[in-house]
């Protein structure tokens, strides 16, 4: 009974959020600048994190994020609401990231994967994922493990990286990712398995003390 209530309540919240989003989109389509700014406010952080991990440096990520919202603004009149706003925005972001990677690959043929900024590099504002970690040693180990995982993500091919980031980091569903990338759901699952497998291997090596 409890689970039914929770599920029922959850669905209401979801429906409310969707209808609120639809209203926001309608207002933005009617040239309401405040509504468009609210959309930016809702999605800026999520898209920024996704783009940052896709391209590997904050300067380009910021430029691409601006471009995403510029294109969204220009494309709003033709947005028909068949896809959700988040799916649509992630699709724009993904296409821009892929274009960016192609351009970059042409310029730098020798770099196997995109460079990442140092820890001291200015990559936005740090938000600790777990502020309640009591043990400094454990926190340091977690931090080190995160670096291993971040490095492993960067070593993935763009196709695998996209799916992994959208599913495991950005929390999109298989269906949403299939719509963002315009690929079958089976392909999404297969790419996700491959991506996870590759990262898991590097983590396993780290846990066995094989990596630096």
């Amino acid at each position, binding site marked *: 009974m409890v689970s039914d209530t929770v599920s029922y309540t959850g669905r209401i919240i979801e429906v409310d959020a969707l209808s609120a989003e639809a209203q926001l989109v309608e207002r933005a389509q009617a040239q309401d*600048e405040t509504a468009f*700014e609210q959309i*930016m*406010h809702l999605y*800026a*952080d999520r*898209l*920024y*994190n996704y783009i*940052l991990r896709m391209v590997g440096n*904050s300067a380009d990520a*910021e430029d691409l*994020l*601006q471009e995403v*919202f*510029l294109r969204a*603004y*220009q494309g709003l009149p033709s947005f028909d609401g068949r896809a959700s706003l988040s799916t649509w925005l992630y699709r724009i972001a993904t296409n821009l990231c892929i274009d960016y990677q192609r351009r970059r690959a042409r310029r730098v043929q020798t770099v196997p994967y995109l460079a990442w900024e140092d820890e001291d590099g200015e*990559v*936005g*504002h*740090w*938000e*600790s*994922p*777990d502020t309640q970690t009591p043990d400094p040693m454990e926190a340091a180990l*977690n931090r080190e*493990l*995160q670096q*291993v*995982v*971040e490095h492993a993500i960067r070593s993935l091919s763009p196709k695998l990286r996209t799916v*992994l980031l959208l599913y*495991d*980091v950005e929390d999109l569903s298989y269906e949403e990712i299939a719509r963002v990338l315009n690929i079958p759901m089976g392909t999404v699952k297969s790419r996700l*398995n491959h991506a*996870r497998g590759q*990262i*898991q*291997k590097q*983590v*396993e090596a780290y*846990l*066995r003390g094989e990596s630096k």
Partner: protein
Amino acid sequence: MKCTRYERWLWDELEGRLGTAQAQELRAHLQVCPRCQRQWEAARATHQALRALPRYRAPQQLALQVRARIQETAAPKPEFVWWKRVALAPALGILAAAAWWGWLALNPDSTYSTETATAAHSVENWVEIHEQLEVADWSPTPTPSYFITTGYTQ
């Protein structure tokens, strides 16, 4: 062969997608298979690390920057004012006339040459007419109309 099946289950278990019976079977296998146990530890650490990756904030000035870019792209191109359009035709006419006069001033013989050419062309026509008249089969008394059209007198 057996391990492959359990490897596939690791992430399902981490995401709570595995049924109770399968979860129990997996746990039993992990207790007797060190290789799968290592993979389980790695998968769990990877899963946790992915979920706990640091989140970054988008730049504070993003809204301002996007608005500036929207205005930049939406700014109308310089308009062609109507009075400029109206003034364009006479201005072009004056320019053309000035150019023609300038050309004439720089080439004073050009007028004479044109007149000479026109005169030469007229003479050629008259010569041709006379030659045709000379070879013509004359009747002893030309018709009055002939006198009128050519002015010929004999």
